[in-house]
């Protein structure tokens, strides 16, 4: 089978049985897997809904604008039939999100209008001819299945005239006649990657066909509309009638998604700060891709429910009979359980501890109770973060810190005592009345059930004060800088700087008192809410934080893996023969190592050009077998062929029997 290129798998008779037995063995310890996965699907579908709405909201405004633009363009305009309506879509630098974006756009266009939508990407359009060929193909192949009743093949128009070549837009015209699409929307997905000559030629051609084919062009632009214009000649620019559309940038969307998924108050599984930091950094530094962010998040959920057998307790309405003894055993081994028990031991609640250890039933009750309360604490943290971010936003504190980084700080338990929080509190102290009013009204949006502040009383009191104030200037608190004045006095040839509070008016005093109360209350609120989530009992069940699975699965280092396998095969094989001596550095070469590993290490030592004959003698000297040189040679040849297959060496013509080194380890 291995030499067949493509085939459909069919099991050999002999294979069927043993694999069956194997399977039952594997499944046994995972007996609650199905339930856990079910829980995962529930949890994730909730998240997915959030994500979809967030994404749609992010896209909606621009996409609707584009849609309107196309609708307008589709109306025949007798005055202006000499220009192609063109949408310039500034999609930002994250190229990876172009594909999905244009796909969504296409779906909307197809649903919302009576237009044909065709996407062209740079990779399929190296020149005008191929571009047109692809265009015709894309349009007509889709038509072929739409019109099954129509027996004419796509190239039928050729019957009336000379036979058309496969890149002739005549095909498109024939197709257009049959389908009567209102207009043909052609999206140039990555305009920067197109050769500008191709673009110019394309525009010229489309323009010349405009009287027969109603084209609408959409250009995806990563840089700016100006630089796009610069690439086209003045002549072809005259053929276009452009309108610019700005797409929400991916980092904004990510921020929105973050607050909708990870930092949202109502999620069953929380994501830990380390993991969040990791995926956000990856977004910032490497990919800038919404899909990737979502995949990472999904994989975190998957990993938690798949691998952590205590995650079964996250299931909604789980009953004692549904859970297995294994899960309880696992809970008893959690570090947070131990901490909890030790605390109880300190307070001499030995009875309680015994019950926890002995009775699964009792433990189950405790777990469900504690999970609920821990969930509440975690939700409170998320709300507090949203609150804090809102405060900062309405106070316009610079630098503006995105919600995600506030959240990460809170989730790692570093928020209390952080300079960030102190700074915010200080500016609350100094807040003038007009801003305070603004703040209170903006905070209304965040208010949720766990939130104990009575904003409305503050509001009424404040309004009272403002009404009583005769001055048009806003009220100021006593901490406001404007109420301080510096006085310089010279005493005994020394300059003394002293601060003096300006005398406060009655209203200001009352206002200061109000602000002071508000400040203290918020301070209290933050101090009680921002606890360290890792300290919570059962935080292992509620929070998923390991980074490693994510790194391994999304950011692999294949080259490193191969280099490691070849330079220290012991790391993988774990055999007795070629191991431990490698620890102290150089003595790693030994005859028992796999031939390719041996040859690779010799390869590492050599220069950029390698004499195979010398390589062979070195190999023979180390790994040689006295009895049969042909066996050693066979191994040598195989190892050399493998190095070539891996792309480590290539033939060299510089000298006879030499090969060129292609890769240096560790680069």
């Amino acid at each position: 089978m291995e030499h067949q290129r493509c085939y459909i798998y069919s099991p050999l008779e002999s294979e069927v049985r043993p694999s069956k037995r194997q399977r039952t063995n594997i499944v046994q310890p995972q007996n609650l897997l199905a339930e856990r996965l079910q829980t995962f699907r529930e949890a994730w579908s909730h998240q997915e809904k959030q994500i979809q709405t967030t994404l749609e909201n992010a896209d909606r405004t621009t996409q609707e604008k584009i849609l309107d633009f196309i609708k307008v363009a589709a109306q025949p305009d007798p005055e202006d039939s000499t220009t192609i309506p063109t949408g310039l879509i500034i999609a930002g630098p994250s190229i990876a999100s172009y594909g999905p974006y244009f796909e969504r756009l296409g779906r909307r266009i197809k649903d919302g209008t009576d237009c044909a939508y065709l996407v062209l990407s740079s990779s399929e359009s190296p020149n005008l001819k191929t571009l047109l060929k692809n265009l015709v193909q894309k349009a007509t192949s889709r038509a072929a299945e739409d019109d099954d009743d129509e027996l004419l093949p796509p190239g039928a128009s050729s019957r009336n005239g000379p036979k058309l070549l496969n890149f002739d837009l005549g095909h498109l015209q024939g197709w257009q006649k049959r389908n009567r699409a209102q207009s043909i929307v052609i999206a140039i997905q990555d305009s920067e990657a197109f050769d500008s000559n191709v673009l110019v030629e394309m525009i010229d051609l489309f323009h010349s066909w405009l009287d027969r084919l109603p084209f609408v062009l959409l250009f995806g632009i990563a840089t700016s509309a100006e630089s796009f214009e610069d690439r086209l000649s003045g002549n072809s620019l005259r053929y276009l009638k452009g309108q610019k559309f700005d797409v929400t940038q991916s980092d904004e969307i990510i921020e929105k998604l973050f607050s909708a998924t990870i930092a949202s108050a109502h999620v069953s599984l929380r994501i830990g700060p380390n993991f969040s930091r990791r995926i956000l950094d990856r977004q910032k530094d490497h990919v800038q891709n919404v899909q990737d962010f979502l995949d990472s998040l999904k994989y975190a959920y998957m990993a938690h429910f798949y691998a952590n057998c205590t995650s079964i307790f996250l299931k909604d309405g789980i009953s004692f009979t549904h859970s297995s003894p294994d899960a309880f055993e696992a809970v008893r081994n959690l570090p947070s359980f131990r901490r909890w028990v030790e605390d109880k031991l300190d307070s001499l609640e030995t009875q309680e501890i015994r019950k926890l250890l002995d009775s699964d039933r009792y433990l189950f009750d405790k777990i469900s109770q504690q999970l609920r309360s821990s969930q509440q604490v975690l939700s409170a943290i998320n709300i507090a973060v949203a609150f804090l971010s809102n405060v900062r936003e309405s106070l316009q504190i610079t630098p503006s810190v995105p919600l995600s980084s506030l959240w990460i700080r809170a989730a790692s338990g570093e928020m209390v005592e952080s300079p960030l929080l102190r700074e915010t509190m200080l500016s609350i102290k100094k807040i003038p009345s007009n801003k305070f009013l603004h703040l209170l009204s903006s905070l209304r949006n965040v208010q949720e059930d766990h939130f104990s502040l009575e904003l409305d009383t503050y509001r009424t009191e404040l309004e009272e004060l403002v009404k009583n104030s005769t001055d048009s200037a806003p009220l100021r608190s006593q901490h406001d800088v404007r109420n301080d004045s510096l006085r310089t006095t010279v005493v005994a040839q020394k300059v003394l700087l002293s601060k003096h509070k300006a005398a406060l008016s009655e209203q200001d005093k009352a206002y200061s008192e109000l602000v002071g109360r508000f400040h203290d209350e918020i301070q209290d609120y933050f101090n009680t809410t921002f606890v360290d989530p890792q300290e919570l009992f059962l935080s292992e069940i509620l929070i998923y934080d390991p980074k490693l699975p994510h790194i391994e699965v999304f950011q692999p280092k294949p080259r490193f893996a191969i280099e490691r396998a070849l330079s220290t095969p012991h790391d993988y094989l774990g055999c007795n023969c070629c191991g431990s001596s490698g620890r102290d550095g150089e003595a790693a070469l030994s005859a028992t190592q796999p031939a390719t590993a041996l040859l690779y290490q010799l390869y590492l030592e050599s220069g950029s050009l390698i004499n195979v004959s010398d390589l062979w003698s070195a190999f023979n000297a180390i790994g040689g077998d006295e009895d049969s040189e042909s066996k050693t040679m066979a191994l040598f040849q195989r190892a050399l062929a493998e190095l070539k297959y891996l792309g480590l060496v290539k033939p060299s013509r510089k000298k006879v029997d030499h090969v060129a080194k292609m890769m240096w380890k560790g680069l």
Partner: protein
Amino acid sequence: MVSAKRKRDGSAEDATPRKLRARAAIEDEENAPDVATPSRRSRGRQVVEEGTPRSILKKTRGVDEIDEATPKSNRKLLFATPSKSTKDETPNGTPTIVRNADRSARRKSNRKLLERTINGVESDDDVLDEDILAEQILSGDEDEDTQAEAEENQPEDTPLLDTPSKRGRGRPKGSRKPQKQRSPSPSQDLPPHEEYFWQNRPGGTKTSNNTLSSQTLLDHDEFFQAMQSYTDCHESEMEFLLELHGRAYDQWIFELEEGFNICLYGYGSKRTITERFTAHLYEHLTNQTPYKGSKKTPKIVVINAYNPGTALKEVLLTIASVTIPANLKLPNQPPALMLYLLDYLTENPPSRPVPIILNSIDSLYLRKPPAPVILASLAAHPSINLICTADTPNFPLLWDVGLRSQFKFLFHDATTFAPYDAEIDVVESVNELLGRSGRRVGGRDGVGFVLRSLPENARSLFRILVTEQLAIMDEDGGQTNQDDVTATPQSKNTAKRIVSEYTQGVEYRVLYHKAVEEFVCSSEVGFRTLLKEFHDHQMIESRKDALGTERLWVPFRQEELEGLVEDLSAELS
């Protein structure tokens, strides 16, 4: 001891004593202007341009350098630790600096110019290594540092000159101390980038001229015979690795079900893993809804992309065969076929995604432009599950961000250490690596056998080709035998050496005209027909060189070619 030996094989004739004399003289000469004028540099250059004493100086220094450089080339093993050799012979430890000094393009062009002038003047032709000579010329040309270095070294080198060491004291010391400590041997623990530059330093690749005799390499039969008796001592460990990966099968199935695709990487053939996984997946699917209790069996597409000639169309057709009813007519071109396939899947989604097992997604046959794009769009479709393996270390470079996000891969390290039995034709690829693909036909005997079955004309054409090729090889014979005393004057020699790398083989036109001259064929059509026969038997190879001219050659080495000519002429007579 080492140096004595070196001299012996470096220049066997009476050249040695004369050179020593010369060197002493020149050292004086070099020192003299140094003392006299501070504007050493310009003067030095002048002298060089005139091609007088300086050039001789270069040569003598060249001997110095060569003294150091040769042992490397004479070493039997490339891999012996080189640190020793440098220590006992570095009175003149400059070369690294010298080499470093000539990196710039300007210097390189200077070098060429100088080479020409000097080569013109020099009559003596026991120059051992062109590169080194050139570097010498250069070092004298401009770099103050190098001169300083050289000067500093000379006192140690030749006891004659201990007095001028005063001058040395006048120079800023800091600038040269670190340079002096530099040695041409690599230290053991260089960081990777340093190692790269070390191993790629100009003139750093000195390898011996040893060649493998054609008997050493095994042919197919010998290879398989040898491998049959061989058992790997790590069999149990490799089996353990496989079993370890086997534990993840259920996890992979879960990941596939959640809409991800899987990519396995790591050293070793991953065929066994995918085979076992396919069986496991098959087993799993037969117990799932659409197949359970029904006669329908799950369809898993397996593609072995490493097999030569894997074409995208075939891949797509195989996928289409399990998804699209057979009575529908499919488009012919891969991109259209793919679009059709995806559209069909979107409109009639199968009850379960179609699993595709793709071995070696990074194979040569799937790397060319349309393939990755098409594979990515396939993988992006929710009704398709892709499980693929990648063998090369740098396979992620095949995909840009867009493709990568389309693939939606989860990567798993699946190192197996298993030999790439199906993926590689070992004997063939080693032969190709060493430029001995002629062995494919079965060597000289095989060619003879083929030729005997061909008409007279074909044999004559082949003889012409071989003789022409030999003639070309003879012309730049200096390339292979560098210490060939009887070689043509160096200027020609060097020119050819640079060119010869690109002009292997006989030009198509030339060969055709020769063939016509000898009445082997009368038209180009006939000529082509004859060549085709050779091509079919893989007796000749052809390629376009940088200028676009087609070149043909017989993939044998010189000895074998000579043998061939003998055979052929013996047959003819």
